[in-house]
């Protein structure tokens, strides 16, 4: 049963993946019009040369044919080659992806470790100062622009601390240029971008924990446990916490691919060499094939993530398989 459900979800994902490739291709080709950086308006090239290069890149073929060629490559795991440096697009992505994953996961762990106690405290001490402070923090956390928070942190912890002779944090990049393998320096570089990213997640997830905790606390089994004389503390640890946090973990799992894409702005502010920073660099260089690959790659990750979450749901909740 479960296998059949998984197979059905997988089949349903195929048209979505095809749609992702079509939309990405159309948007890029229609906006760029097949522009090749460094080729057009280059006075040292004859028209014949330009035509030959465009022909070699396959840009003179009809659009549907170009799409099918690109799609055939994708099916073989070939994301094409970069228009600016001729390297395989996939190499560029895989070179940067670990950095993005490192940053996102650090932020996720950081946010979960703070959000759950905050949300639980807010729910247990409903209506008190603790609850109001938690609420205020989460409302502010959603509204503060990540790039602005990043700038302010740089201003304080890099610029001002440096000026005051205090130990300061590096303002950008992912490692010490003098020693790439220095783990301590790498962690120092990670502190600020991960904090900014975690602050945004934390705001949403602490609210989520608070409301699901309140829901669980209103359940009959909680009342039964308390009526049987279980201490409040033990009840929270045994019953409430587990039931309140499970949906949050599922939510995070479902959103993980989206989170990886959403880290782009923070990467750009801190010059963190992840795929978001790569997207900006390549966009400014008019390297469309790399951008097409990036958007498709992230799209596939989102669809795959949703698929895994769907199947996991079905494992946990048998009613869904019907």
């Amino acid at each position, binding site marked *: 049963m479960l296998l059949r459900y998984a197979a059905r979800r997988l089949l349903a994902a195929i*048209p*979505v993946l095809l*749609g*992702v490739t079509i*939309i*990405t291709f159309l*948007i*890029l080709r229609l*906006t*760029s019009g097949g*522009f090749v950086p460094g080729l057009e308006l280059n006075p040292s090239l004859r028209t014949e040369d330009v035509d030959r290069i465009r022909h070699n890149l396959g840009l003179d073929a009809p659009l549907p044919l170009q799409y099918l060629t690109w799609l055939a490559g994708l099916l073989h795991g070939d994301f094409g080659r970069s228009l600016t440096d001729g390297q395989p697009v996939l190499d560029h992505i895989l070179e940067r992806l670990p950095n993005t994953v490192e940053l996102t996961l650090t932020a996720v762990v950081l946010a979960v470790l703070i959000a759950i106690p905050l949300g639980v405290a807010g729910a247990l001490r409903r209506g008190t100062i603790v609850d109001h402070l938690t609420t205020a923090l989460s*409302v*502010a956390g*959603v*509204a*503060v*622009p*990540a*790039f*602005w928070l990043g*700038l*302010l942190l740089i*201003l304080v912890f890099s*610029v001002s601390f440096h000026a005051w002779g205090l130990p300061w944090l590096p303002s950008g990049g992912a490692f010490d240029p003098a020693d790439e393998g220095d783990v301590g320096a790498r962690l120092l570089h990670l502190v600020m971008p991960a904090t900014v990213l975690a602050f945004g997640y934390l705001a949403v997830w602490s609210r989520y924990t608070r409301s699901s905790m309140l829901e669980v606390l209103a359940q009959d089994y909680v009342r039964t446990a308390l009526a049987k004389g279980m201490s409040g503390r033990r009840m929270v640890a045994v019953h409430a916490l587990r039931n309140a946090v499970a949906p949050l973990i599922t939510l995070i799992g479902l959103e993980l691919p*989206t989170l990886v*894409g*959403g880290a*782009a*702005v923070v990467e*750009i502010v801190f010059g963190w060499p992840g795929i*978001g920073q790569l*997207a*900006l660099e390549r*966009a*400014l260089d*008019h390297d*469309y094939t790399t*951008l097409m690959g*990036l*958007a498709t790659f*992230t*799209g596939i990750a*989102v*669809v795959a993530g*949703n698929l895994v979450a769907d199947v996991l749901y079905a494992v946990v909740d048998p009613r869904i398989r019907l």
Partner: protein
Amino acid sequence: MRASRGYWEESWRRLLRNRAGVASGALVLLLGAAALAAPVIAGLVLRQDPLSQDLHATFQGPGPSHLLGTDNLGRDVLARLLYGGRVSLGVGFLSVALATTVGGVVGVAAGYYGGTADDVLMRLVDVLLAIPGLYLLILVGAVVTVNAVTLSCLIAFIGWGALARLARAEVLSVRHRDFVLAARSIGASDLRVMLRHIVPNVLHVAIVAASLGVGAVILLEAALDFIGLGVAAPTPTWGNMLSGAQSFFTHSVWLVVLPGSMIFLSVLATNLFGNAVRDAFDPRLR
């Protein structure tokens, strides 16, 4: 119809009773009015132009001639903040209005007709929700020069899917109710059934989603301006003012603090108002 009028009236009362909601709503109106009246305030009251440079008066602190000081080209910061609000709030409201309309129409049609149309439209929504919106905006922004209106259309294009899904789910829950059946059995056309009977029952979803969406769009638009792929100079926006101030923020902290605070304040106000609207209009929260 009596019951439905009661719902709207009751919702309005609940909204007006919510003090935080009224305060944040007033703040949104104030920010909106300041943005709309920017040419009048800047031109007649401040007598400052957001674009005119004065290279003899750069990086001035707040003072009588420039209430909030000047930037690196000697432009008046207050006038630029006022004009910047036009872009941020304009894009925020316009793209949410567009996305709500498109998402609402698609969701209602898909839910009402069902079958193949529903399948095709919902797969399209799946596709749009799978593509990372920010990447799409980055790449389009790098190729074409966008202005506030085209940017709103782009944001609406990638943003209508979520509402279509919500609206469709809501339609499915009312489609087989007796009042729909009654309307159809007396010969009402599909269009009439949808507009008169389905839409009023779906509207609250759209209102709640829209009022919670504006803040997110303001943040997105400011981020795009900040990385240089949104609305570009010379048009002043809060996002591109921030990116301009980046190079000078060691000696002119105000140039970083002010535009960021305006973004923060607007998003905060629209989100709080959105929460109040949700509390008042969502029937499940009663």
